[in-house]
């Protein structure tokens, strides 16, 4: 459904960040985009949702297609209308708006009736009961987990086909992370929403995703079924910090050699 073809992204006309990234998100799937700090995950998601332009970034090569049509030139607002919504890294709730107002802004692009919107709101609350309790609170004063839920709920109010979800686990306690990923899985199976999920938390992401790509330095260095990636020795070693011989230090020589091989 979403296909990225060999894209290059440049910030400020000079900083080359993505160096030919290709990936695909088939309908109804959860695809994980993994990699460390500065690998280019966020940049990839913003290239798709076209939020790059507002950060002086630009896709200079390659193409992005959604449902068989080029979307490189569509505005973020058009994309939301067509069903692609990004949930930004760090949640970005509207802090001075209440939780419920935040959710309502998500429906901005829709010309649905009041009753329809109210119904969708209830649906979001059904997925995130905690938000219903907090609905009158200013979202700036809610917890990190609640803000992440608000951000996802807000995206849901646009009735998306695909959500680009950027590091939902950031700064959250493990149980909350589980809770959120469970809801993501539910949304995927019950509402048929596809997800492209950028995560540093490789372990959790691969448990919930169907397929994964590993990004390093603006290139895809590895891809495969989540199952395979999870059991892959290299992935285990580099991203999970485990190997058959036990934990390895980051400076390990072997580590370095393998890394070299990937980047080649």
């Amino acid at each position: 459904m979403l296909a990225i073809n060999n894209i290059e992204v440049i910030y400020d006309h000079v900083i080359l960040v993505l160096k030919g990234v290709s990936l695909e998100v088939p309908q109804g799937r959860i695809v994980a985009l993994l990699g460390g700090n500065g690998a280019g995950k966020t940049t990839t998601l913003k290239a798709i949702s076209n939020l790059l332009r507002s950060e002086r970034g630009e896709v200079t090569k390659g193409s992005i297609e959604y449902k068989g049509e080029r979307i490189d030139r569509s505005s973020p607002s058009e994309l939301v209308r067509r069903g692609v919504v990004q949930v930004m890294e760090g949640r970005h709730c509207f802090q001075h708006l209440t939780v419920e107002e935040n959710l309502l802004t998500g429906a901005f692009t829709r010309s649905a009736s009041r009753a329809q919107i109210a119904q969708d709101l209830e649906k979001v609350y059904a997925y995130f009961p905690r938000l219903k309790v907090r609905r009158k609170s200013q979202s700036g004063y809610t917890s990190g987990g609640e803000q992440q839920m608000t951000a996802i709920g807000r995206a849901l109010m646009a009735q998306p086909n695909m959500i680009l979800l950027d590091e939902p686990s950031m700064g959250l306690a493990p149980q909350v992370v589980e809770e959120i990923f469970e809801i993501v899985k539910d949304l995927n199976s019950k509402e048929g929403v596809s997800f492209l999920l950028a995560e540093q938390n490789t372990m959790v992401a691969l448990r919930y995703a169907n397929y994964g790509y590993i990004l390093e330095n603006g290139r895809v260095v590895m891809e495969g079924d989540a199952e395979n990636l999870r059991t892959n020795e290299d992935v285990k070693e580099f991203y999970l910090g485990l190997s058959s011989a036990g934990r390895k230090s980051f400076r390990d020589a072997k580590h370095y050699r393998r890394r070299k091989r990937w980047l080649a």
Partner: protein
Amino acid sequence: MQFFFEVLIGGLLAGVMYSLVALGFVLIYKASGVFNFAQGAMVFLAALTFVGLQEKFGLPLWGAFPLTLGVMVLLGIGIERVVLRPLVNQPQITLFMATIGLAFFLEGVAQLVWGTEVRRLDLGLQDEPIESVMERFNLLISKFDLVAALVAGLLVAVLAVFFNKTRIGRALRAVADDHQAALAVGIPLKQIWAIVWSVAGFVALVAGLLWGARNGVQFALTFVALKALPVLILGGFESVLGAIVGGLIIGASEKLAEVYLPSLMSDFLLKHYDISINLAGIEGWFAYMLALVFLLVRPEGLFGERHIDRV
């Protein structure tokens, strides 16, 4: 005591006029974080266009009003196109400088089109005491001031509903909070900015009519914007309510200070230090001094949004 109330009420009503101007600033500051230096010029342009249209085409009030409003809306859309859009992603200070340029441009254009002489603006409202109030309470309350206050009150109520209860209003507040996130949920910033500037144009028109009717439509109207500054510092730059309360406080305290402070102060100085000075004209600077004190005590203003720091 009678006299005290008269001064107080007169001050409060005059304060409403300040609020009206401050309101225009608040709208734009809320949605785009820009201090719009051109707000005063917009007030001037609106008032001048209004009387200009009346004179040239012999239009009645209700004919010139929608036409002028149309001009202000077009202006809002034009400003988004020509000034704001090319400056997206530039630092706030660049935008602020752009509004300074805009102020001179608007002042120039207004005078080029309509000429530079002072004009009378007649809204059919007399600046005379209301008789019934005078008979019953023995207070002198200006009819003009009262109507102006009512208009301002109505305007604020409409704006409050607009901001809090409508889809567009909510989007405006969302944009004010977080541009990036607003873009991400599909709110088109360009459209929102055009709307905000149009609404600010509408507020400028109302302010321009009231101020113009009171002082005459002339270049000095652009300076009413300066009176809005202390109001904003007192009330907070982001708050519609702050603009109102700030205006009331400034209006009332400045009138009371003008009336009572000089005699109090000079008596005091004469008695204790044997100095005699003339403290008349305190009204001109009292508001700024009050604002300065406030800036030291509570920089975000009475109703300004506190920045929510949470990680």
